[in-house]
């Protein structure tokens, strides 16, 4: 089962390895690690979000081990996609392997394509695709959009992103 954990680490070398050890011990598969260096807590700790593939029954044990090492576990549980963004792609969306485009997002572990609709006017004409992407957090969403931009540039697709409410 895919689980997400939010931890707070001391800002000293070696902390991340210390945090990952109990997960490895529980044979968890680490899918992604996002360090929020820019969002230090008032206590000076660094928030870190992990996505882990692991048996849920092992979660409590891992949490205990982490806390024993002095790591704060803010939240741990089933992965939650809390950010959603709509994107439109224009170009030869299907011919440029739409399956691959989608899987480049899905394979990140922190974002996925959850809604997809296509509009194809004619064989040689550019088609358009609407997709809704969801991700586990704002930073993860920005990463997913960056991947999509890169894929768009490779496949000569126009990627139309939404304006955000704030800058």
């Amino acid at each position, binding site marked *: 089962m895919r689980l997400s954990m939010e931890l707070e680490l001391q800002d000293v070398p070696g902390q991340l390895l210390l945090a990952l050890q109990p997960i490895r011990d529980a044979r968890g598969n680490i899918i992604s690690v996002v360090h929020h260096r820019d969002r230090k807590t008032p206590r000076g700790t660094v928030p870190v979000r992990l996505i882990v593939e692991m048996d849920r029954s092992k979660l409590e044990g891992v949490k205990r081990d982490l806390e024993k090492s002095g790591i704060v576990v803010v939240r741990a549980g089933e992965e939650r996609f809390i950010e959603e963004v*709509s*994107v*439109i792609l*224009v*170009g030869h969306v299907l011919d440029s392997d739409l399956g691959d485009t989608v899987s480049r997002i899905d394979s990140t572990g922190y974002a996925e394509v959850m809604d997809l*609709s296509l*509009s*194809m*006017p004619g064989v040689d*004409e*550019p*088609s*358009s*695709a*609407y997709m*809704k992407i969801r991700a586990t957090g704002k930073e993860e969403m920005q990463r997913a959009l960056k991947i999509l931009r890169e894929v768009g540039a490779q496949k000569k697709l*126009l990627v*139309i*992103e*939404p*304006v955000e409410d*704030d*800058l």
Partner: protein
Amino acid sequence: MREVRISLVGYGVVGHGVVDVISRKRKMLRELGLDLKLVSITDHTGTLVEEDGISGEKVLGHRTLQEIANSEMSAKETIRSVNSELVVEVTPTNIVHGQPGLGHMEEALASGKHVVTSNKGPLVVAYNKLKRLADDNGVMLKFEATVGGTMPLINLIERTLVGNTILGIRGIFNGTCNYILTRMADEQYPFSRALAEAQELGYAEADPTYDIEGVDTAAKIVILANAIFNMNVKYNDVQVRGITEITPEALALAKKHGYVIKLIGEVPALTVRPMLVPIRSPLAVGSTLNAAAIYTDLSGTITVTGLGAGGVETAAAILSDIVSIYRTKRVDAIF
């Protein structure tokens, strides 16, 4: 009554608008204490000089000055030799070298004359140089009309929103693109048909490249970056993508999910690209309108909208700049 002697350089659509607006508003301006006197007009065919002031009636019927010019002076010679204190520069824009407007502005500022302009090119190419020239000579360079036409933006930020830190500006700065995208969304027209319609209605130039490739929007982003954010950037610093790849199908998909597609310029991000805008957003304006959201630290987000082009509309922004130069002491100087 304060008499202000003005030289107008450029007599196209905006130049006509300036003459029209100054004559139409003469009474109101006099009530403000200003007597705006147009003492010379120059275009590519020649120059008309009248020391006592040129009347709108005399010139507005003429498309160019060819039949009414009384001097062969070039624009620079006119700026140098005619007794005026303010130059309105409205020649066609060129964002590669900024000429001929750049030369006109340098001449005017160096001669100690205020400059009011709608011409983006010189500001894109040499904003910092022109600003320094104005400061060194104790005169003003005003350019509200270069960004967003009649939509108040620069004066709004510099005066009304003063005290705020401006975090960013994001908006629709090209009426032609907005018209094309609106028609494509409403009628499911392909791009080429919407463009042809815009050209027939006079919203798009015969060569629409500057508009549809995002060049015009990017030029405005450069001006905002330099003038509002002191960024010292050039045109090439802006990442630009126009609207030519947009299809009616993409617009229909967007609409189905609650969005419109707009060409959005952003500063300080320095990007121009088509983006999805929620239908209920104040930025989701249609037709030839422009709109800009100004993100501030104290006042939150302020959104303005207005006509981005048109002779009289652009001239209104020029007039407002002219008045603001002279009303400084009466209205909002710090004593």
